[in-house]
């Protein structure tokens, strides 16, 4: 069994109109090497599902996003995601804006093959107003409490970036927080994983094996992508790249800024990409953020 693929192989499987999810959180451990491959492709009309960071803004800037299902879009140190903001303010983006916990519940419902999971989050807010598809349900028990029935967020494809993987699809996430990647993996028909390091076969001690958060049976393909989360962080290996994020953010305010960004950082190979960011050594040594 060998699930090793290239990013181009993976993106070649995407079709217009698909619903795709991205693991990670804001500017943290996003599968950016895959995102850049999507930006280079001609796939369009995507429904993007994410705890959003720069991947959301970039896909919006490139006109790939028909609908965004999200709880937020932010780069933390630069709170407002510039291209998400542009797309939103242009009124060009169809959105399903959800509470962070409802979003998790939607993924979990999909992961458990349930039509919905009940929640209180979202009741008595405009999340209900602006998402007329969200329905309430009364508890069938004595309490009769009215709850929001969060529908399953079924994904066609999920992309997750991990620290280590093997050719079988086993994965390890060794940063301080695993975020919600396991739910993305289970909510999707197919999950493709990019990894800092791909080994033939993980042979681990028990303590290290606990860094695995979902099984290889969830994984369709594995892409070797060293430094593949850049410019987002990938703890404990490297932090986010403030210089790059600032260049990216500033480009949104410049004449043909997105095209310049594409020409500089997307329409190039992985080697050129790293060179244009100061080299692999610089990127691999980007300090982890202090919170």
């Amino acid at each position, binding site marked *: 069994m060998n699930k090793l693929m290239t990013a181009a192989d993976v993106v070649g499987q995407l079709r217009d109109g698909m619903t795709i999810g991205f693991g990670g959180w804001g500017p943290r451990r996003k599968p950016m090497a895959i995102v850049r491959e999507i930006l280079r492709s001609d796939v369009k009309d995507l429904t993007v599902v994410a705890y959003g960071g720069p991947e959301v803004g970039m896909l919006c800037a490139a006109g790939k996003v028909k609908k965004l299902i999200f709880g937020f879009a932010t780069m933390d140190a630069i709170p407002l995601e510039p291209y998400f903001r542009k797309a939103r303010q242009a009124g060009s983006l169809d959105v399903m804006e*959800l*509470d962070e916990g409802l979003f998790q519940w939607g993924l979990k419902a999909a992961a458990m093959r349930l039509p919905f999971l009940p929640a209180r989050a*979202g009741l008595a*807010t*405009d999340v209900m107003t602006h998402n007329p598809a969200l329905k309430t349900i009364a508890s069938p028990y004595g309490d009769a409490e009215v709850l929001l029935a969060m529908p399953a967020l079924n994904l066609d494809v999920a992309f997750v970036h991990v620290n280590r993987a093997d050719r079988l699809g086993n994965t390890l996430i060794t940063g301080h927080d695993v975020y919600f990647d396991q739910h993305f993996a289970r909510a999707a028909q197919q999950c493709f994983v990019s990894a800092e390091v791909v080994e033939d076969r993980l042979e681990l001690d028990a303590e290290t094996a606990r860094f695995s958060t979902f099984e290889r049976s969830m994984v369709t393909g594995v892409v070797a992508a060293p430094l593949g989360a850049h410019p987002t962080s990938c703890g404990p290996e490297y932090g986010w790249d403030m210089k790059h994020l600032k260049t990216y953010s500033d480009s949104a305010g410049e004449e043909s800024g997105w095209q310049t960004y594409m020409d500089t950082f997307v329409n190039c190979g992985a080697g050129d990409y790293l060179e244009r960011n100061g080299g692999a050594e610089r990127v691999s040594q980007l300090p982890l953020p202090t919170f």
Partner: protein
Amino acid sequence: MNKPEFSLAELMIVAASEAWRNNGEWLASGLGIIPRLGASLAKMTHSPELLMTDSEAYLVEEPIPVGPRGDYVPKYSGYMPFERVFDCVWHGRRHAMIGPTQIDCWAQTNLSVIGDYHKPKVAMLGVRGLPGNSINHRNSFFVPNHNSRVFVAGEVDMVSGVGFNPERWGPGMRRDLMSVGVAVTDLCVMDWNGPDNAPRVVSLHPGVDFDLVQERTGFALLKAENMAETAHPTAEQIALMQRLDPHNLRSKQLKGNPAGIRTAEEVRA
């Protein structure tokens, strides 16, 4: 002993810390420098029972100084990644202090958009965790620039966090789990403990009078019966703030880093 000099930010940190008094073993989440220092101060003084994190993924019993840590090594007491924070939210033993973009007379909050939802004038972060936080546990607010663009007339543009507006609540929905703490602003401390959860001014910062707060608020305010001047930081509290904030980030949180004691003219300037 001379009374210590203090900044408005330091006064607000002490006021923020009071929000977490008598909460019990709740997770205290202060988002932003002043709320976080407030939570840390609460834990180090009157409420050591509070739970607190390193603002990333671990529980700590000793609050972590803000900013670059130098040779400070955090001492972890447990694990609290985002998914477990969600568990705490839904379970209810949490009190967050956040800085919404808009707050209305019903304590409803907005972090999503300003203007029309479908083509907003300004798109902010998104509702984030506000819907779930606000319906499940106590929330307080931090407002660094008290004005009627924050404390709006009528409803906030996009209700992200629930409040006391009865029209928003349908039959059968549980509203007894929600709880609103205080709003700590650069003018005063407010709560929603008036008749029918009406907003009130609880204390005024030095040099601020009630009329000024009302002028800069988009909705009618009541005076709490025991409305007083906001408590000044003690020398002990200031010493703790210096330890918790060795790089003096608190001095950069309010425009011009105003002094804590100001004349009425200085406040209005």
